[in-house]
């Protein structure tokens, strides 16, 4: 019997650990990844010729980052690796992958999707100005290109990445003018009992805050962002207008800003495959349904990492291993010695407690998204305003996000709702006066990212 064909999409923490475990059981998986090399976004490697040591790039996580890179380097002869390749459709048990200029049709016996996440955003007035980036983007500029996103930089949003990126910028010698957190000052104390599930991580968070304090970076909590304002030229960021927790309205001078409120899962391929989704009230987003090991509702399809549960990099490594063990079990292959699904599941539970704590400590400001001024550009791709989205919800009576998308085109642009979708759902729900779960989720569409039409003319098996 031929060896089963197992494909892993994504070579971040989850995909790498999944591939490692599959090879340990004697399989030779195909690993498809959009990036040039493994690491995902969080442990992204700097290009060849860069010299900064891992401690400069990854800080307290440098050990985990270098371990993940080394694990992948050790796999290179034992897997098939397609870097710079886009898995763009998953339909009828077949994965479609763009590699170079050709698309390939890939059947499989088992497929693990470890597609990761992107920043979750709120489309503020002025967020399209040059100088405004996502938090993840600001981190990539620094980590992978040794650049700061500007000269006087503010970070705005909520969640652990807000403080991590600000502290990384300080460490790299950039001028951070302020950290603006929309979470109320007292929120994190209410989350303490849940976050105590991972004391080491709590300590790291405290260390980040201490670094910011030592550098004299003001940290404002409970802020209400109002506008990202242009500078004198009118064509790039000059400042951020926000309301303090005490009600004062302030303008902070800065020429760059990083924005983000936790993460949103990349779920398009799972959606195209027909996986069932559930609304997750903790993250206020729809996530594919999985069992405790990562089996989706579609046979042969497994999901791991931030693309299905937003547990962060450590949780993704565990999820990748669990999904690989589930694949082996379902294919009737003996797992490698020492692999212990029970212990992994137990660790995963602690991560999930911490995740719930984070959502309380740094809540998604749904009301802020819902209350954006009508003239705010919600859709960056096609410059569509919150007012137009509200009109589709009101006058045109769209009951859910896909109908509203058809009317307004919010979510139809080339980012396919990645940047605007979750905030757009809050606007729609608030306009209609219903809970956000009731307006549903944007359906995925293939190709999940733009690709040249020529690539489709002759697909190769």
């Amino acid at each position: 019997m031929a060896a089963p064909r197992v494909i892993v999409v994504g070579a971040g923490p989850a995909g790498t650990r999944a591939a490692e475990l599959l090879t340990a059981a004697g399989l030779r998986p195909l690993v498809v990844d959009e990036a040039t090399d493994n690491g995902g976004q969080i442990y992204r490697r700097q290009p060849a010729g860069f010299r900064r040591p891992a401690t400069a790039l990854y800080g307290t996580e440098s050990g985990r980052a270098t371990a993940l890179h080394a694990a992948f380097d050790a796999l290179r002869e034992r897997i098939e690796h397609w870097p710079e390749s886009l898995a763009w459709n998953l339909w009828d048990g077949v994965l479609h992958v763009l590699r170079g200029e050709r698309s390939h049709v890939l059947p499989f016996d088992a497929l693990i999707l470890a597609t990761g996440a992107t920043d979750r955003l709120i489309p503020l007035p002025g967020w399209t100005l040059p100088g405004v980036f996502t938090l993840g983007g600001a981190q990539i500029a620094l980590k992978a290109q040794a650049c700061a996103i500007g000269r006087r930089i503010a970070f705005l949003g909520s969640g652990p990445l807000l403080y991590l990126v600000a502290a990384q910028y300080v460490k790299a010698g950039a001028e951070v003018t302020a950290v603006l957190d929309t979470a109320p000052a007292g929120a994190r104390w209410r989350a303490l009992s849940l976050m105590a599930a991972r004391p080491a991580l709590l300590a790291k968070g405290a260390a980040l805050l201490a670094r910011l304090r030592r550098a004299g970076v003001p940290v404002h909590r409970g802020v209400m962002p109002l506008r990202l304002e242009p500078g004198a030229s009118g064509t790039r960021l000059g400042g951020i207008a926000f309301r303090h927790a005490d009600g004062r309205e302030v303008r902070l001078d800065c020429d760059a800003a990083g924005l983000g409120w936790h993460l949103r899962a990349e779920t398009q391929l799972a959606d195209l495959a027909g996986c069932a989704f559930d609304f997750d009230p903790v993250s206020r987003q729809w996530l594919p349904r999985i069992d405790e090991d990562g089996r989706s509702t579609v046979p042969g399809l497994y999901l791991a990492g931030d693309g299905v549960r937003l547990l962060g990099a450590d949780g993704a490594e565990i999820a990748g291993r669990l999904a690989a063990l589930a694949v082996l079990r379902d294919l009737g292959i003996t797992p490698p010695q020492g692999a212990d699904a029970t212990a992994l599941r137990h660790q995963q539970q602690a991560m999930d407690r911490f995740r719930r704590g984070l959502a309380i400590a740094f809540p998604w400001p749904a009301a802020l998204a819902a209350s954006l001024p009508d003239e705010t550009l919600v859709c960056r791709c096609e410059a569509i305003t919150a007012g137009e989205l509200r009109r589709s919800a009101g006058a045109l009576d769209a009951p859910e996000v896909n109908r509203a998308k058809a009317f307004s085109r919010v979510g139809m642009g080339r980012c396919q709702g990645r940047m605007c979708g979750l905030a757009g759902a809050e606007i729609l729900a608030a306009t209609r006066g219903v809970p956000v779960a009731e307006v549903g989720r944007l359906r995925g569409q293939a190709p999940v990212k733009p690709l040249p039409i020529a690539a489709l003319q002759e697909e190769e098996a």
Partner: protein
Amino acid sequence: MAVAGMPLMNAAPESLLRRLDEAHRQPVAFTLDGHPATALEGDTLLTAILTNAAALRLSEFGDGPRAGFCLMGACQDCWVWTEEGTRLRACSTPVTPGLRILTTEAPWPRLG
């Protein structure tokens, strides 16, 4: 940590991005809106452009300049064009010597 003979660190005062490190790399010459420009080996096209200029492109919908956003291939807000009319996603394309990039307007094919 500017290197002698390499005036690239923060060369353009109007540039959006600011280099903090890794200035030892070899220069890469390319063309930006018809003018000669210099990047460093290992730069993405986004870095190459935004260390020389303050924007990457104009929104097709008339709302002004854009300079990318997510840097991880998700937002598609960093598309630029070569003079020959090839579209490139600047955040995930390495800069290469001799590239001729337009940030002003897509070179639409002439009709008729």
